[in-house]
């Protein structure tokens, strides 16, 4: 069946790797994001790689007015509709501490924006009885840490939301997969030194595609993060609150 993928946050490095692989499989791509010039280049790239269609469209997680046109464009495509969410922002925690107003934006980028979009998309997928949703969260969402707890809080909220959405859509034939990457070598992590178990956008994209094939519900990438986060989640709060990890 013909596949159309809505890519939210399509100018992110991780989205680019995923989109290139989908393009080579001949999927249609709706590239939604804020940087239109960059999205246009991504669309040319996708078409050259074999995408059946590739259209850039404006999407801003903080501006719900941009959501409906993306859904309308998707509904015009034949075949199965899928959506992958790569939006998110991670300003340094100190900056948010100094300017609490920044919190709203981080939550909108990483949680409420994409959740509201998926909420609007869900009935259409339900009606069609097929499709996949990939929501990219973060291992940072598994437990709040001193270093980035606002970002972590947003990603944690998003993961909980996705769990519920999976519960709702799973029974209608729509698969929802939560992806929790550790540090990935992208623009977001550039300039940070020596992050542990770093992976690449290309490897994450491969893992997502493999996870979709196997029907995974929650995917840690690299896989080592699953045992690590299991341990970190198990640390009792009285101990954890004194740790700086």
């Amino acid at each position, binding site marked *: 069946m013909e596949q159309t993928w809505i890519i939210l946050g399509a100018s992110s490095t991780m989205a680019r790797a995923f989109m290139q692989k989908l393009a080579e499989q001949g999927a249609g791509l709706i590239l939604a994001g804020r940087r239109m010039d960059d999205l246009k*280049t991504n669309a040319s*790239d996708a078409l050259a790689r074999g995408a059946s269609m590739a259209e850039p469209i404006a999407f801003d997680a903080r501006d719900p007015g941009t959501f409906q046109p993306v859904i309308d464009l998707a509904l015009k495509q034949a075949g199965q509709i899928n959506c992958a969410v790569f939006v998110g922002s991670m300003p340094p925690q100190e900056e948010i501490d100094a300017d609490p107003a920044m919190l709203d934006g981080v939550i909108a980028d990483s949680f409420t924006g994409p959740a509201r979009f998926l909420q609007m998309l869900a009935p259409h997928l339900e009606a069609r009885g097929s499709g996949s949703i990939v929501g990219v969260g973060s291992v940072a969402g598994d437990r709040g840490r001193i270093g980035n707890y606002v970002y972590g809080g947003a990603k944690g909220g998003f993961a909980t939301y996705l769990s519920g959405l999976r519960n709702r859509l799973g029974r209608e034939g729509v698969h929802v997969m939560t992806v929790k990457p550790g540090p990935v070598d992208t623009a977001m992590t*550039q*300039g940070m*030194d020596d992050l542990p178990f770093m992976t690449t956008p290309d490897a994450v994209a491969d893992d997502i595609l493999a996870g979709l094939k196997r029907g995974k519900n929650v995917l840690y990438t690299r896989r080592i993060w699953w045992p690590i986060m299991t341990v970190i989640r198990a640390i009792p709060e009285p101990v954890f609150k004194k740790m700086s990890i």
Partner: protein
Amino acid sequence: MIAMRWRKDIAYTGWGRALTASGRVARPVTEQEIDTIAPAFGNRRSYGDAPLNDGGAVLDMTAQDRILAFDRKTGLITVEAGVTIGALARILPPQGWLPPVMPGTGIATVGGAVAMDVHGKNHHNTGSFCQHVTALTLLQNGKRRKITPDRDKRLWAATCGGLGQTGIITQVTIQLKRCPGEVMVVTERRVEDWAEHIAHLDASDATYCVGWIDATATGPKLGRGILEEAEIGSGLAPARPKRRSVPLDAPSWALSGPVVRAFNSVYYHRVPATGRTVVRAFEDFFFPLDKIHDWNRLYGKRGFHQFQCVVPLDRADTLRAMLAEIAESGLASPLAVLKRMGDGRAGYLSFPMPGYTLAVDFPNRESARDLIARLENQAIAARGRIYLAKDGLAKGPSVKAMYPEHPEWVAQVMKADPDGKLATDMVRRLDLRRL
């Protein structure tokens, strides 16, 4: 717009891992992010110090990997410099096109292919990579320039094979070649000695032709190997070999004399005495070693050097003497290649010349370094030259003697980058910016 960010004190090497550097590395995702002029590298498949800038800054171009424009009717494609040759070889054949020239690894980037003016197994009839490039975009001090071979003759010739010294190569337009099939039909035959090897290379009229040579065979077997001739075919299904990787640095005996001799003997006898014709996937034919991920680790922590030279057609005897010395030394690795080259070259420092080229890997040991120095002298005496993409050991005066157009290159480089912001460890080692 995301600002370009630096990671500090990053250690990195070329493919041979014998030479190392450390310094600041940035990995800009788009050309617009580049706010500093510094040497650029791709996947660092050059063996020596061409991609190194010890103590300074470098730009990793591999994140810029998009195809910007592709005309399926004319086969003209414009790509960002970080697109790999392997990606093009995977994406284009189903659409009827193929990169006209492909080096022995698909992991090399298009930007690197320009900076080294690489060649492939079809050099004798198709020429070098840059001869199929129709436009380039360079970032020079404060300005962005699109150049073409007609409008910018000298700067073009200094850029093709020019080691990235005329500007950061950001975009490349390539005239692709039509691809009439989806597999390679490869004829392999044993050749018993040097004379037969050369005779076959001379007589071959195949589109793709290369000889694997057993650089451990001596005496009457000197120069024995397997000749591979190939054409693009269609309607056949190739066998799919497994991907493997080398997870750890190998111990020092992994490529010792007896192991290599045994491997080479098996490799030689794997092809039946009467020869055979096999069907291979493009990537298995063009990039045979990419299947073994990180194979450079087979040489252990100290790394290795590759010696590659070309000598004029009438000096095949010199090359034979060089091979004899290599075989006697017992230092050679399994991966030795012999090929006849045509006259195709695009730049002042382009490697190819009509003649025979020999490439041999050596573990990074003093005896091997001494041997490479002797081989270099023989190449100069034969009016040949060594390939800078492979080199990590040569001396400046020898290289300048091998490349008679070096003064023209210097003139262009000093205009394009007068402050030496793009200078690399190789450029400094060979003192290339001076006459």
